[in-house]
């Protein structure tokens, strides 16, 4: 992804890079082949594995995004 | 007796016209240019004006226009005389309000007849 010339300060560039990383992470997590790993008839804490995996990683991603963006706040 | 005013800058023509008109029994006055003519019109009050076109100071057209502009002179007849016979000249004269137009050289008999007809005689 091209970086903006406007991400002037170093901090912003870092945030931007981190967000890109999260995006890529999400792309991997939410797709095959990782998906197929958890795609089986099993349960964890009584909750189907796939369901748990998807919603769990989703939440983690959200939290990461929140942290990165609101992090040092300016 | 009807009054005729003769206006021309050529002395000889004036003489001939004067003689002619007097012989026909008109009361005649003479002017040699446009300004004289206008003055005489007011004092002499002619019934008819024999008006040359090419004159110094004021041309016959101007005199004709002045007379026609004056509502008191609406009864005054005007016959224009000129050596220039072009149609435009004739049209202009009539447009300005002349009652008739005669080109020089004219026939004395014709002129007299025209004068009489314009004045309303037989």
């Amino acid at each position: 992804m091209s970086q903006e010339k406007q991400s002037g300060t170093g901090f912003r560039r870092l945030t931007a890079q981190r967000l890109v990383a999260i995006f890529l992470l999400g792309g991997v997590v939410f797709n095959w082949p990782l998906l197929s790993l958890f795609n089986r008839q099993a349960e964890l804490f009584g909750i189907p594995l796939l369901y748990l995996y998807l919603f769990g990683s989703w939440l983690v991603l959200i939290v990461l995004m929140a942290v990165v963006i609101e992090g040092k706040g300016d | 007796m009807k009054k005729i005013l003769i206006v021309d800058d050529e002395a000889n023509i004036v003489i001939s016209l004067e003689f002619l008109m007097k012989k026909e029994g008109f009361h005649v006055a003479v002017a040699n240019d446009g300004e004289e003519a206008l003055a005489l019109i007011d004092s002499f009050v002619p019934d008819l004006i024999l008006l040359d076109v090419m004159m110094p100071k004021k041309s016959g057209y101007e005199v004709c226009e002045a007379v026609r502009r004056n509502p008191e002179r609406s009864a005054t007849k005007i016959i224009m005389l000129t050596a220039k016979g072009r149609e435009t000249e004739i049209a202009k004269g009539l447009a300005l309000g002349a009652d008739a137009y005669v080109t020089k050289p004219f026939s004395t008999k014709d002129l007299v007849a025209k004068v009489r007809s314009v004045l309303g005689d037989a």
Partner: protein
Amino acid sequence: MLQGWSIVLASLAYLGVLFAIAWWADRRADSGRSVIANPTVYALSLAVYCTTWTFYGSVGRAAATGIGFLPIYLGPTLMLSLGWFVLHKMVRVAKANRITSIADFVASRYGKSPLLGGLVTIIAVVGVVPYIALQLKAVSNSFTILLHHPDIVMPTGLGAVPLLQDSALYVAVGMAAFTILFGTRHLDATERHEGMVAAIAFESVVKLAAFFAVGLFVTYGLHGGFQHIFDQAELVPRLAKLMVAGDSAANYGSWAALTFLSMLSVLLLPRQFQIAVVENVNPDHVRRAVWLFPLYLFLINIFVLPIALGGLLRFPTGVDADTFVLTLPMAEQGEALALFVFIGGLSAATGMVIVETIALSTMVCNDLVMPVLLRWKSLGLAERRDLSGLLLEIRRWAIAAILMLGYGYFRLAGEAYALVGIGLISFAAVAQFAPVLFGGLYWKGGTREGALAGLLAGFAVWTYTLLLPSFSKSGWLPAEFLSHGPFGIELLRPQQLFGLAGLDEISHCLLWSLLANIGAYLALSLRRAPDAMEARQANLFVDAPVGGGSLSSWRGSARVADLLALVERFLGVERARTALGRYARSRGASRIEELQADAHLIHFAESLLAGAIGSASAHVMVASVVEEEPLGLDEVMNILDEASQVRAYSRELETKSRELEQATQELRAANERLREVDRMKDDFISTVTHELRTPLTSIRAFSEMLFEDPKIDLADRSRFLGIIVSETERLTRLINQILDLAKLESGRAEWTPVAVDLSEIVRESMESVSQLYRDKGVLLECRLPASGPEVMADRDRLMQVFLNLLSNAVKFVAPSTGRVEVAVAAGDGAVRVSVTDNGPGIAGEDQELIFEKFRQGTGNNGTLTDKPQGTGLGLPISRQIIEYFGGRLWVECPPAGSVAAGARFIFTLPLPTTQKEQT
């Protein structure tokens, strides 16, 4: 309790609350204390993404494919993580360029092309109409179901319901009315609707609350929690399968495609663009939205699978999974909850419809209707004073039309698909905007043609592979079209194009349409370099300079009054003055009229207008007030480069054109002279006629009179005859002179020069006029040599000249005191003769005039005191004669105001060479 009227009442009450919120928010905005200037509100408003598709359809999809409902929400999450770049940039660019819709964005980016704007609008309308139909279907279905409480009855045979009994129609009409009231109360320069955003945010909360309520009810009310439900489901093999996704490449491919598709849709759907970009108050709000919006999606989806499973457990058959959120509470006599859920669904539907139709109607008005109307000269719109009323009217009609289209689609094609299916068709349609939009945001090479081609190609493929098949599945088009291809061409089967089988219809469509779209976009964009306007816009969009500085310089100038009038026309007088007044104050002027009509003001006016009628039309209108096109720095540079080449050519051109100018002038002058000569000839002829006829008049008159009356007395008779004689003479003289002149001028004079004694001729002429002089008492003197000089000339002609000069002199001098002197002097190869008098002299301007035919001196006071005798031809003839013999004739006078006056006529004649030696 749950009767028709109570449901309707509750709905109306809810809508009333929405309206009140919107109205209140608008009021607050007008007074400057905006309610929505809050990142949380912004993030919540983005949740308009969740419509009845989410509310009802997700559960339906989950019941069929398990986890397969989820990609639609994962996609936006991923997109928002990138959101800092993409969304933030989009918002900044949109604000800087006063973008008011997605059509406006695309049109503006590719050179302010109205054609592009129109195309995007059409695609958006066609693509989104099914989606609107979906909402109508959901609301009307849920209403019908609720109505039958406590029985659980599935609405069937939608298309068969008579028109006037179709609740969906009333829903459509009601929504149209509501939206019109909501969104077209006034025209805002920035196309922002604060009230709407506030209401949408509120609705998002209601949706979530309602869904949560049902979720909790099912999970903990009907069952013992998450584990319990899943345990129960495991026991049923059919349900157990739903815990996993289909483990096949097609399935994963489908999953990826849907994720990708929803990534695009969360920004490209007209309502999303409107809320996320146009309605955005502050680009920094995007930051909170980046995680808050995905969190919302997370929360609203937690209970989907449990509800689906719960429903399947409760209703093994016979009940549409789409309706579980409603039918489950109903089955358990939870009337209040059911009503709440219904309201939740209604909320989801109205939110979508309001924002979507407002966004679409804005586009239709600004990018479709107005450009056509403005160009349709016969309507004279460009001259109409106040167009804000017209703009609002167009939008109202557009809203109504769009909703009717939605209803139409619903009636005719709504049965064929489950809710989710319809929605995905719309997603695929707006995905066609992705190449041009993102390409425009990150690549400067995109051109107008490329964008047009890409959009058309993508739209065409979409139509062929998704839209038409949807009609085929509803029975509009023959089923063979789908199964065997058009006219039986199997290779062109709409959903297995070129034999590519094995993909679900969405992935299939996505693949081909984006291929065609991107391919055409790149191919045509690369055919030529972007032109000045495109390049400038590319810089503005791709570089997105901070501060929104557009370095455009509108060249040319406009008057402040003109700009003000223009803005007033479209925004209304009040808003125009408010906006411009604020601008004026920010620039230090106390009144609008004091503003400088500089490039800044022009640009500001343009952006104000863009808010009302879209940037393409605004550009056109401002251009009509300013005379020239704006240039960016690049273009100026390019022009300078070219200019040096051009300069060389233009210098050459300059000299050539100057020569041409000169030649024309000379030609004109020559023409003038020719005309004047022509005129003079006419004058001459008419004057000659007059001159000839005058003496003839006297001759004839007197002759006739003498002839008529022989008895005229002698004195008169003599006089008359004398006059006849003299006039005859005059006539003869004139005719002679004219003939002379004619001969001289045509060069046919045949005078043979012989040697003549000048002095002798002088003396003889003096003798001829002596009587004239004696009569007037004028002194005539001469200074002559005893004899000679001899010149080569014609004796009679020279005589003629002397007689002319002498008789002129005696005419003009005063009697008794007049004095005329003739002097002859030889020397220097020529002889000089002068005739001097002490008369009044000749005024400077007349000194040449008198040598013209028929002109005579006017005397000192400029008027004829009396008409002199003579024809006016004497001097011209004399001059011709002298010149014929090689000499010159002119007049000299002392300057005006000197003591002595008078005129001196001088002529010279060349001396033959032999004689020169003698002197």
